[in-house]
C-alpha cells in the first residue's frame, strides 16, 4: 500500500483524537480519559511518521539507516528523560515543568524552521515566498517561546531571583525585535531562503535573545500568564511549520492549541485584572515602590492552638489557601483539620482565588490531591460576598490575593486586581512563614488590621498543632 495514504489516514484519526481528547479534558468528569484519548492519537501519529523513511528522496535514502537510528535514539532518549522528570516532580513544581516542556516544543518548531532555512530543498518544494515567510514567522515564534519558557522555568524554579530591568528596556527589546525581523525579511526576500549559514545562525541567536529580554523583566506574579502565552506561541509555531512541511496533523493540532492557548491567556490575564499588553511590557513595580501608602496598626502574632480553638467554636469558617500551602505540602493536614471542624458542625468552605498557587486551577489540583471534595471548594466570585457572614477567615500562605489594598488603594501596584474579601470576616487568621512580602513585593495591610492575627510557622507544622489542639479539647 502507498505509504503516503497510510500516513494521511493516520493523521486524520490523530487530529480527531486530539480534538476529542481536548474536548473531554474540558469537563472534570471526563478529563482523565481525555488525556488518554489524545495520547493514543499521539502514539499513532509518531509511529506512522517513521513511514517517511519510505517516502524520502533518493538523496536522503542514502543516509536512511543513520537517520532512522538517530530518530529512534532521540525519540527514546527524549521520552525517557521527560517521562522520568515528569513523574518525580512535586505537584507544586508543575507550573515550571509545563514551562520547560512547552519550551522544548517551541525549540523543536524553531529547529524544523532552521532545517528548512539551511536546506530549503528538504521537503522538495520549490521556493515559494509564502512558504518562506511562514517558515521565518514560525522560526521567530518558536525560538522566542523556547528561550522565554526556559527563563520562565528558571524564574519559577528560583534559579533566577532577580527581575532584570534596565531603563529604556522597551526600546532595547523593540530594537532587538526589529533586527530579528530585518534579518528574517532579508532571508526571505533578499536571499530567497539561501541565506549564508552565518546570517541564519545570527538570526536565530538574536531571536533567542529577544525571548530572554522579553521574559526577564516580567515579575513572578505574572508568570502564569506568560507561560500560557508561550504555550499559545508554540502552538502557532507548530501550526506554521506544519504548513511549511505540508503536514495536516501539525497544522490542525498547532492551530487548535494556538487558539485555545490565546483564549486561556486572556482568561488568566482577566482573572488577574492585567492586560496581556501590560504583562508583556511589564511596568509592574517599576515606579511603585515609592508610592506605598503608610500602613497603620501592628502585626499581632498568636498561637496556632488559640486560633484552632476559636475555629472549633465558630459557625462558619472560610479558608483561603495560597502558594505557601503548596510549598509546605500542607494540603493533606489541612483537610484532616477541616474534617475535624466538620465533625463539630462547623460550616467550612474553601475560597479559591483564580490564580491561587501561581496558576489558575493549580490550587484546585492540590486540594483534589488531598481528597477535598470539590463541592466545598468555591471560586472567588461565588464566595466573595459570604466572607461577611464568616466568623473566621483562615488565610494559609496567601498574600497578594487577599490584599485589601487592591480594592482600596489606587497607588498600590496591584490596585484593581480582584482579591478575596477575607477582611470582611469577623476574625482573620493568617498562617505565614515569616514577615516577608508577597510575590508582587507589596506590603499587605491586611496583616496590620485590628481583626487580623498572624500565626507564624510552616503551614504543615501549624496544621499539625491545630489538629492536636482540637483533639485535646475532646468532644466537649
Amino acid at each position, binding site marked *: 500500500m502507498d505509504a503516503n495514504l497510510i500516513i494521511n489516514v493516520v493523521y486524520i484519526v490523530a487530529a480527531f483524537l486530539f480534538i476529542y481528547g481536548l474536548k473531554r479534558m474540558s469537563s*472534570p468528569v471526563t478529563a482523565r480519559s481525555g488525556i488518554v484519548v489524545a495520547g493514543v492519537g499521539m502514539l499513532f501519529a509518531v509511529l506512522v511518521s517513521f513511514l517517511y523513511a519510505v517516502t524520502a528522496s533518493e538523496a536522503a535514502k542514502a543516509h536512511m539507516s543513520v*537517520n532512522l537510528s538517530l530518530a529512534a535514539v532521540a525519540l527514546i532518549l527524549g521520552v525517557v528523560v521527560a517521562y522520568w522528570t515528569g513523574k518525580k516532580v512535586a505537584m507544586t513544581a*508543575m507550573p515550571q515543568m509545563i514551562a520547560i516542556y512547552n519550551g522544548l516544543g517551541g525549540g523543536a518548531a524553531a529547529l524544523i524552521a532552521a532545517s528548512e532555512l539551511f536546506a530549503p530543498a528538504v521537503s522538495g518544494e520549490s521556493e515559494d515566498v509564502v512558504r518562506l515567510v511562514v517558515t521565518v514567522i514560525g522560526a521567530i515564534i518558536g525560538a522566542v517561546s523556547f528561550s522565554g519558557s526556559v527563563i520562565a522555568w528558571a524564574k519559577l524554579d528560583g534559579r533566577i531571583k532577580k527581575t532584570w530591568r534596565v531603563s529604556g528596556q522597551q526600546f532595547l527589546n523593540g530594537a532587538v525585535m526589529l533586527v530579528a525581523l530585518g534579518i528574517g525579511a532579508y532571508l526571505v526576500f533578499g536571499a530567497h531562503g539561501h541565506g549564508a549559514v552565518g546570517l541564519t545562525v545570527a538570526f536565530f541567536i538574536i531571536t533567542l535573545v529577544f525571548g530572554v529580554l522579553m521574559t526577564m523583566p516580567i515579575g513572578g506574579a505574572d508568570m502564569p500568564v506568560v507561560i500560557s502565552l508561550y504555550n499559545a506561541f508554540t502552538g502557532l509555531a507548530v501550526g506554521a511549520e506544519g504548513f511549511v512541511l505540508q503536514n495536516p496533523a501539525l497544522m490542525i493540532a498547532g492551530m487548535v492549541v494556538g487558539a485555545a492557548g490565546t483564549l486561556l491567556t486572556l482568561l488568566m490575564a482577566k482573572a488577574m485584572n492585567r492586560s496581556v499588553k501590560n504583562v508583556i511590557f511589564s511596568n509592574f513595580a517599576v515606579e511603585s515602590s515609592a508610592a506605598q501608602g503608610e500602613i497603620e496598626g501592628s502585626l499581632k502574632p498568636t498561637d496556632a492552638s488559640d486560633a484552632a480553638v476559636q475555629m472549633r467554636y465558630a459557625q462558619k469558617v472560610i479558608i483561603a489557601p495560597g502558594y505557601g500551602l503548596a510549598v509546605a505540602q500542607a494540603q493533606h493536614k489541612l483537610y484532616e483539620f477541616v474534617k475535624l471542624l466538620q465533625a463539630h458542625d462547623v460550616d467550612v468552605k474553601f475560597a479559591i482565588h483564580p490564580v491561587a498557587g501561581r496558576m489558575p486551577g493549580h490550587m484546585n*489540583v492540590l486540594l483534589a*490531591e488531598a481528597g477535598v471534595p470539590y463541592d466545598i*471548594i468555591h471560586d472567588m466570585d461565588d464566595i466573595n460576598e459570604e466572607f461577611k457572614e464568616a466568623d473566621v477567615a483562615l488565610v494559609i500562605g496567601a498574600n497578594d490575593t487577599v490584599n485589601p489594598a487592591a480594592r482600596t488603594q489606587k497607588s498600590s501596584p496591584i490596585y484593581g486586581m480582584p482579591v478575596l474579601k477575607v477582611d470582611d470576616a469577623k476574625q482573620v487568621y493568617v498562617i505565614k512563614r515569616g514577615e516577608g512580602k508577597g510575590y508582587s513585593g507589596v506590603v499587605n495591610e491586611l496583616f496590620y488590621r485590628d481583626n487580623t492575627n498572624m500565626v507564624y510557622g510552616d503551614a504543615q507544622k501549624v496544621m499539625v498543632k491545630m489538629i492536636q489542639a482540637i483533639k485535646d479539647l475532646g468532644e466537649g
Partner: protein
Amino acid sequence: MEATALSFTGFVALYIFMLAAFTGYEIIGRVPSILHTPLMSGSNFVHGIVCVGAIFALLNATTPLEQVIGFVGVLFGAGNVAGGYVVTERMLEMFKPSDKKK
C-alpha cells in the same frame, strides 16, 4: 506517490487554520476555571505533535548539519510529548468525583 501526497496551498491552508482556530476557541470557551491548568498542560501535550515534523525533517536529512538539527528537534519534540503527557495525567488523576458527602 504524488497521487496521495496532500498539498495545502494558499486558501486551503487558510481554511484549515481558520476552522482549527475556531475549534480551539470553542473547546476552551466553556471550561470551568479549575481545569485551566490541566487544560493548558493538555494543550501543551498536543503541540508535542511537532515531534512528527522533526522526525520528517530528520528522515529527509542529507547533510550532517541537518542530521544534528533533526536529532535535537526530535529530542525536544519527544520531551514535549512525554513530559506533557505525564504531567497532565498526574494532574487529572486527582480529579475524583466527590461522592462521600451528603
